[in-house]
C-alpha cells in the first residue's frame, strides 16, 4: 500500500533518514534549512513529524532531560519499515518522472 506524502513530509522523512540516531526536531529543522534553503517554523516541523508518526512512517522516543534544553528531553525520531518503504516508493516515482529526461534540462524553444 502506498502512502501519499506532501513535499514537507517527504523532506522531513529524508531529513530523519539522513540524521539517523540524531534526528530530533531542531536537527531536522537545520537539515531542512541547509538543504532546502527554507526556515520552517518549529511548529511546522513538529506538526509534520507528528503527522508522519500518526501515519506510522516514524516512531519516536524521548531522551533523558538535558540541561541545554532547560531540563526537557529531546524527542528522537526514527524511520519505521513503512517509512522506509514510503521513501523508496517516493524515490521510485521521482526517478520514473526523471527517466528519459536529458541532462541538463533545456527549455523548450520559444
Amino acid at each position, binding site marked *: 500500500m502506498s502512502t501519499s506524502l506532501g513535499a514537507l513530509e517527504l523532506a522531513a522523512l529524508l531529513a530523519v533518514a539522513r540524521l539517523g540516531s540524531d534526528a530530533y526536531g531542531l536537527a531536522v529543522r537545520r537539515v531542512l534549512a541547509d538543504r532546502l534553503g527554507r526556515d520552517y517554523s518549529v511548529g511546522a516541523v513538529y506538526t509534520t513529524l507528528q503527522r508522519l508518526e500518526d501515519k506510522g512512517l516514524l516512531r519516536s522516543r524521548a531522551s533523558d532531560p538535558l540541561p*541545554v534544553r532547560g531540563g526537557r528531553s529531546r524527542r528522537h525520531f526514527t524511520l519505521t519499515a513503512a517509512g522506509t518503504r514510503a521513501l523508496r516508493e517516493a524515490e521510485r516515482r521521482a526517478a520514473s518522472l526523471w527517466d528519459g529526461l536529458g541532462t541538463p534540462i533545456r527549455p523548450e524553444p520559444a
Partner: protein
Amino acid sequence: MIERLLESLGADPSFAESILGDLAEEYAVRAAGNGVIVARWWYAYEALRSAPHLVRSALRCLGPRGVARLAASLAGVVLASVLALLALSARKGPPERLVASTVVVNGHRPVRLPMRVLDAAGRVLPDTGVRYALAVSPTMSVSPAGEVTCARPGDAIVRASLGPLATHVHVRCRPVVDLLGPGMLDLIVGAPAQDIPFEALGSDGRAVTLLVGRIKVGDSAIATLEGPRIRAHAEGVTSVQVLVGDQDAFSSVHAYTPTDSPEAVRPDQHLAVPVRLTLGETREWRLPAGLYFLRALPDHGNQPRPRLAVVGASCTPFGVTHLECFARADMSVLVRYPRRTDAAPEMSGTLLVWRLPDP
C-alpha cells in the same frame, strides 16, 4: 506562557515538551551568539509563526470540548493582542509642535493664553511646562505661566517655548469697559433668527468691534441661539445674556405668537399681528381692560415706523420702542401710516401686544 497555550490548544504533553525544548535549545545558542535581546525577539517570532500550525494540528485531533477550549484560548490571545495594540497606539509621544492662534482679550482681568502642545502624530499633550515671555508689547504684561493682563488697547506678540520648541502668539488687547444690551428683545415665533443688538464700549467711549465672548439664553424651550443670532420657538418670556471680557449685558426676550387679530388676547399672552397699511390709512383694534406693553414696528428697517396710538387707556413710553398702557375698560389701539410726501405708497409691519397677567 507558551506551555500553557500549548496545553490549552490540546497538545500532547510530550509534543509540547519537544517543541519547548527545541525552542529553549536554539534560544541558548542564539543568546550565546547574538545576545539575549536578539534571542528573545527570535523566540517571540518563532512562537508566533508556529501558532497557526499548532492550531491546525490541534483542530484535527480535538473533540468538540477541545475545540471550544481552543476557541476560548484563541479569543483570549486575540483580545490580549488587541488591548496591547490599543495601549500602544494610545501612548503619546514627546512634544513636537506648539500651536496657538491669535488671542483677543476684552477684559482687564488676567487671561491664560490657550496653547496646544501636540506630539508627532498630532495628539494633544498637557500644556504644563510651556513658558511665556513678552517679545513686543507697549500695552500688556504676561506671566511666565502665560497669564496676560491688558492695560490698554493695542497688539502684542508673546513668545511661548517648551524645551527646544517655540512659537509666537499674537495678542490683541481690546478692553471693554461697558456693554450695552437692548434691554428688551422682541421675537416672533416662526420668524428667521435675528441679531442680538448690543454695543461694547472701550475706556475712550468708542465702540469696540473686535470681541470674543459668549451668549447665553435662559430658556431654550422659548428661544435658542444660531451662532450669534437668536430664534424664537415658543411664546413666552426668557432672557439673553451677552458676556464679553469682564462685562455682561442682560436683556429680557419676549416671544410673540403670530395672529390675525389681538382682540381676544388673554392675560400673560404675547401676540404679533401683521399690519399692512397704505399711505394715510389707520387700523384699529379693541382690547379688553388690562395692563399692556405695545409696540408697532416695520417689517424692514428701511421702512418708516408706523404710528401707534391708544384711546381709553393711560399710557407711558417704556424705553424708546414700547408703550406701557393700563385700561380700566376696553381700549382702542390704532396703528397709522402717516402721510408724507416722500413715503412709499404702502408699508407692512407688526403690532406686538403683550398683555400682562392680571394682578
